[in-house]
């Protein structure tokens, strides 16, 4: 167990490598109840989110989801978010646990001039994710006729019943695999968890902790707030410029600064590396080119899929354009590192 943004979280249930591989080949079950749920409701809820976030949420159909971000006026990232439209006048914004207070506060202020209400509903939801190629057949055993999981699109969601309990079930996740996230009443969470464990056991489902979640998302090239994203990072540096919807109508917080940053182009860019050693490049370690620092590692881990350590790092664009020989300073030793396209892992469809 570990302390994570004020929550007691399982770092691992057994072995993080076993849990990681179970998600890649069968299924893993995650307790993500620490994630923040912020409800934005009312006739102008979509318009309020269009102003508050860098995405274009108002045209999204009910039952769909978007990956987006909330930025500061200067274009820095305050959090990355998944937003579900759960009803015509209701959006559920999923924030990282450490940022829930910030996101709730900013959304409240930014929605001020709109006919929309903002409510922190984090305590009203438990979040259980089932991820992996066996997610559909396992979850289907406990949803009865309430949901057509096979027909549900990626980044879509619907209300249904899981183990007899009402839940919002969405085909989203943070592992690079097919899978679902189940938002339910905390009072029902144990029943949902136990049913999925019971019906998943035969398919090889195992409980998976934070450590496996981190290596899974890293292989999938997904950013983690606090590592790849932060108030000193713009979406362009994180290769996520497509998330900034400049073509949406009206102003949004950060538009002006982001337009300037987009025109200038990023000075550093998030890059993938593999290293030829068992030693792990970790957050903060320097990236070297010709012995000179040219960037810093944001996340690193042994990749169970690739069999070598992998890392994401911000590297000066002026250096990477010259395609030099890179190394990563692992506690005083310059370990050769190879630039690798992101993501490190992409599931076969």
């Amino acid at each position, binding site marked *: 167990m570990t302390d994570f943004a004020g929550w007691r979280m399982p*770092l691992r249930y057994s072995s993080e490598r076993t849990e990681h591989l179970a998600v890649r080949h069968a299924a893993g079950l995650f307790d993500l109840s620490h994630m923040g749920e912020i409800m934005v409701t009312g006739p102008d809820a979509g318009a309020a989110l269009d102003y508050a976030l860098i995405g274009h949420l108002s045209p999204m159909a009910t039952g769909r989801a978007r990956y987006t971000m909330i930025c500061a006026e200067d274009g820095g990232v305050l959090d990355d978010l998944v937003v579900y439209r759960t009803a015509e006048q209701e959006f559920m914004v999923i924030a990282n646990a450490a940022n829930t207070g910030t996101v709730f506060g900013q959304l409240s202020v930014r929605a001020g001039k709109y006919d929309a209400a903002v409510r922190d509903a984090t305590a009203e939801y438990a979040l259980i994710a089932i991820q992996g190629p066996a997610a559909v057949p396992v979850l289907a055993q406990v949803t009865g006729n309430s949901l057509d999981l096979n027909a549900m699109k990626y980044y879509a969601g619907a209300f249904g019943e899981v183990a007899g309990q009402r839940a919002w079930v969405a085909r989203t996740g943070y592992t690079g695999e097919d899978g679902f996230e189940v938002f339910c009443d905390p009072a029902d969470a144990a029943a949902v968890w136990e049913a999925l464990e019971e019906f998943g056991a035969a398919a090889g489902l195992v409980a998976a902790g934070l450590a496996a979640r981190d290596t899974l998302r890293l292989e999938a090239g997904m950013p983690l707030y606090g590592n790849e994203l932060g108030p000193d990072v713009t979406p362009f540096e994180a290769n996520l410029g497509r998330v900034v919807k400049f073509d949406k109508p009206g102003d949004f917080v950060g538009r002006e600064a982001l337009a300037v940053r987009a025109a200038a182009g990023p000075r550093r860019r998030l890059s993938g590396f593999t290293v030829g050693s068992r030693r792990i490049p970790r957050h903060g370690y320097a990236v070297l080119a010709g012995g000179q620092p040219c960037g810093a590692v944001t996340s690193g881990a042994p990749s169970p899929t690739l069999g070598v350590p992998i890392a994401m790092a911000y590297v000066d664009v002026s250096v990477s354009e010259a395609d030099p020989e890179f190394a990563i300073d692992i506690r005083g030793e310059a370990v050769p590192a190879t630039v690798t396209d992101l993501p490190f892992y992409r599931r076969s469809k």
Partner: protein
Amino acid sequence: MSVPAELRYTPEHEWVSVDGDAATVGITDYAAQQLGDVVYVSLPALGSEVTAGEPCGEVESVKSVSDLYSPVDGEVIDVNADLEDDPSLVNSEPYSTWMFRVRLPDGEVPGDLLSPAEYEELTQSAG
């Protein structure tokens, strides 16, 4: 979690087995469980001198890097090369996966090593 009766222990979670003038050192089951999957072990160089209570290597797991401490003074006379190929042995067989051997000067066993009961108490009070 197991704490074999025939071994001695340190507060830094190493186990020590003394045979004649040689001490064999590894890390405990408790330490291995706390670390999670071990991915890399850096051992002291053969022939180097290690000092009791001083770091002489590193044990790296998915989530952390921890110093490896020598429980005894002396010269390193052997290191476990198997760990280079398969560091996960530390997790699967912590007590048969020794890390390094030290020749004890004058063959003397330090008196401040913990008994199995003392070590078990220490891990329990740590939660």
